[in-house]
């Protein structure tokens, strides 16, 4: 007898030379039931009872059909073109045992995790397929990595949203050094569009008038000279550096 695929009931792994997959919880339970009933015809009620009823679950017929469809799809992906699960009339099914080799060996999981990306072999994984097996390799590297990946993806989405909002909300400003007068370095906003020399004179007068030149302030930043407002920052340290001891000076002209 030549088997076309190998099935490991303890882990739910099913593989052939062209594909491998880990069966979902329901599919695995149903396949296990079919294997236990190999060679005999089983009916829908038996399937209901063995695959779900034994766990205290009541499901619709469409769930049963869907599970069988998934199993058949898996067999097809494994390259088994013949019908492993044959449907008879009046909702009766027959499992042909000659296609699957059953191996009771939990070591398989290690091989899977070593050789494949779990994301590719979990087409219908319900998240706890391997937990029952007690295989620590699968438990540690399989399902959690998928959950972690999804978590990371959502976290990244949140982060992107936050960063985008900050980009819109927070406006970067920069200053360019202009002149140094009596030990005070005057800077102008990079967006400053007025007559810098004229505003420099005003800024110098202002610093002197407010006696700010007597304090240890050594940096003056001119923000704007447009309209009726002159705005300066008079700082001890470069803006943004040190402790950021700055005084904001706003002059309303000709009120």
């Amino acid at each position, binding site marked *: 007898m030549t088997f076309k695929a190998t099935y490991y009931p303890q882990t739910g792994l099913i593989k052939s030379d062209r594909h491998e997959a880990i069966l979902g919880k329901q599919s695995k339970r149903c396949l296990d039931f079919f294997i236990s009933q190999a060679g005999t015809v089983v009916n829908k009620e038996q399937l209901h009872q063995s695959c779900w009823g034994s766990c205290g679950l009541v499901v619709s017929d469409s769930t049963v059909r869907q599970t069988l469809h998934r199993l058949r799809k898996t067999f097809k992906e494994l390259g088994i073109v013949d019908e492993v699960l044959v449907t008879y009339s009046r909702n009766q099914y027959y499992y042909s045992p000659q296609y699957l080799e059953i191996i009771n060996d939990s070591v398989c999981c290690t091989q899977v995790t070593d050789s494949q990306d779990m994301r590719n072999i979990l087409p219908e994984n319900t998240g706890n397929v391997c937990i029952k097996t007690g295989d620590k390799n699968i438990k540690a590297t399989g399902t959690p990595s998928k959950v972690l990946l999804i978590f990371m993806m*959502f976290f990244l*989405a949140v982060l992107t949203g936050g960063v985008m909002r900050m980009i819109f*909300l927070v406006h970067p*400003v920069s200053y360019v050094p202009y002149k140094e007068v009596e030990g005070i370095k005057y800077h102008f906003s990079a967006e400053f569009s007025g007559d810098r020399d004229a505003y420099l004179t005003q800024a110098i007068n202002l610093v002197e008038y407010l006696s700010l030149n007597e304090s240890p302030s050594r940096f003056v930043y001119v923000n*704007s000279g447009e309209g009726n407002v002159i705005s300066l920052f008079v700082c001890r340290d470069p*803006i943004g550096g040190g402790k950021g001891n700055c005084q*904001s000076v706003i002059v309303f002209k000709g009120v």
Partner: protein
Amino acid sequence: MVIKITLCLIFFFLGWFYTPVALKETSGDCISNTILLYNESGRTIISKSRWDMMKGGEQLYHSSVIKDIQEGGDAKNFSVDRTLNVEVDFHRDSLTVDTVKAFRINGPETSDPEYGRYIDPLSELGFTSRIYIFYINGRFLLGFRDLPLSFCQR
């Protein structure tokens, strides 16, 4: 796949809308020193203020000394102390700040005909303005559009 994309979008907008909340919740106390200078014919008014913004940014303490310098050189000083509550409403690129409560501790009322208008406008009940947040070398500045005005000290 569609569910994942939908969830990603939901989480994206969660980040988008939660950022201002997080920003408010994590913003610490902030002190800002401001000098307002009014150049008028016949006199100059200098208002030296200190703003204490409490954590969250919606409660402020304002303390200032207003100096009225007449043309002849005579000067008159008085102080203003107020506590106030503001409401902050975030927009895409800015925020609207409304002064919803203002309590006078010391100094003239805003309605004072001579000095009321020299009291920092933010400390006046009913003040509303679109405020922009600026950033430079790890520091946040607040001000009007393209015009940083206030520097947060810590």
